[in-house]
């Protein structure tokens, strides 16, 4: 499997520091985007712990994955290990927050993808998203863990009066805020010519899916797509950090 990947990130307008973090390990096929939260510098700490833990866990798992393949099938092992890496980052951030009161409210979103054997395993928590682009079709792979989605899932009216916050701004699942976290896992078969996009809500709140789709169709080159999307988002005046990772599946064949 041959991949070409790029990332771009920009600090939100008027923010002291960028709390977004990305992982770009092209050789391993491992990518992630984390959007930290929790005041002062805590958000950036949470997103960095998450990114570092995922990388660390899956480096260790590399050899074990090939061994386990005999029993469980390679894709299953791959997805399970990715989800377990996210869960492990949850434990570490939660423990760290419990030991350091000044960052007890830290947490982070995680959207991570591990591409091997023509399969993209995607594990996510929060409102950072993964999309798959194929032949001008642009499909979202993740479902936001926001109150808006939780209400919609119940068929409840999202505009109910008692909500003081915008339900889009309220996350119902975050990495690092509770001892355990449920991780959503999606497996998407990928083909030559596909693109995988991971991004934070700093992008998706201000740039439409249509614009994202068109930018891939037109620009084709991962770095140019990333730069274009981040610039477009920054120009629209959002105050949130913006991060995007674009992976081009140059050749899906081979190990």
């Amino acid at each position: 499997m041959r991949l070409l990947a790029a990332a771009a990130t920009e600090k939100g307008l008027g923010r002291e520091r960028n709390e977004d973090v990305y992982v770009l390990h092209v050789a391993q096929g491992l990518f992630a985007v984390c959007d930290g939260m929790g005041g002062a510098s805590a958000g950036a700490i949470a997103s960095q712990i998450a990114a570092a833990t995922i990388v660390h866990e899956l480096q260790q798992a590399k050899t074990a994955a090939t061994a386990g393949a005999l029993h469980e099938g390679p894709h299953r092992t791959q997805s399970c290990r990715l989800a377990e890496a996210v869960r492990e980052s949850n434990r570490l951030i939660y423990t760290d927050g419990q030991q350091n009161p000044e960052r007890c409210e830290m947490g982070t979103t995680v959207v991570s993808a591990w591409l091997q054997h023509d399969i993209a395993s995607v594990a996510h928590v929060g409102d950072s998203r993964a999309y798959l682009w194929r032949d001008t079709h642009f499909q979202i792979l993740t479902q936001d863990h926001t109150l808006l989605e939780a209400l919609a899932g119940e068929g409840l009216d999202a505009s109910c009066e008692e909500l003081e916050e915008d339900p889009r701004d309220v996350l119902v699942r975050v990495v690092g805020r509770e001892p355990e976290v449920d991780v959503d896992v999606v497996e998407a078969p990928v083909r030559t010519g596909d693109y995988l996009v991971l991004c934070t809500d700093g992008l998706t709140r201000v740039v439409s899916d249509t614009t994202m789709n068109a930018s891939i169709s037109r620009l084709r080159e991962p770095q140019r797509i990333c730069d274009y999307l981040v610039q477009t988002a920054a120009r629209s005046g959002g105050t949130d950090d913006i991060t995007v990772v674009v992976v081009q599946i140059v050749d899906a064949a081979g190990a």
Partner: protein
Amino acid sequence: MPKLVVKFDERVLAEYPVDSEMTIGRLPDNAVVIDNPAVSGHHARIFLEGDHYVVEDLRSKNGTYVNEQHVVRGALRHRDVLLIGKHKVVFDAVATAEPVPAPRRTPALGRTAYLNTRKHRELLARLRAERARARSQSEPSAKAQAAAFLRVVDGQTDHQEYWIHNPVSFIGSSEEALVRLQGWLKPRTAAAIVQNDAGFTVTDFDGRTLVNNQCLPDGSQQLKDGDMLEAGGLVMRFGLAVTSPAESGTEPESGQGTSPASFTVNSREP
């Protein structure tokens, strides 16, 4: 220059100088923006007429109130309190210092909040219950016939049987609870029973609610006639009745002969 002080829960959110004419509403083109779903896009207008200010409701969905009186149009006096949705707006006619407008809430990007699992389940349960209540009010005739009861099998409480008439009934130590738990350390709300189109559903609040000795993996579960419900340290048998005793005045028949020996219409019933 007079000013408007926007408050929520007695907390001052913002202050605005009063122009000769200004509007209050949810949309960003108002002089006073209250970004809350209970507020209409253009909710009310305040303007100078002669030597005094007048408030006029702009056909808002939830109406405009001055000192708790519904108004369509009325003069404003010093310290009048407008109710716009759930926000209070105090009219201060004699303010001298220049008020500082609060930063606009929109766009709210980056102000992400987190609602923990327990709180968000509670919120969803409450909203579900409110929807059930709204539905039962809109179609009262057929639904009123469905009735159910809880019969205490084990544990200390104020009654032995409870009839479930309301769209939502709580088990807990709070005053609103139908099944009122007694004793220290009892949760305010251990569980709720919600009546919906499909029947009765129990929603767990404290993680300790069991139905037939099983916990509720989804946080809530449909109740069947004869189910054993354990919540807040009580063990109760859930039973369905054909008619409600409040309406028929006769002892109801239940599906499996689990009808209470003597039924007690709960005293908190209106």
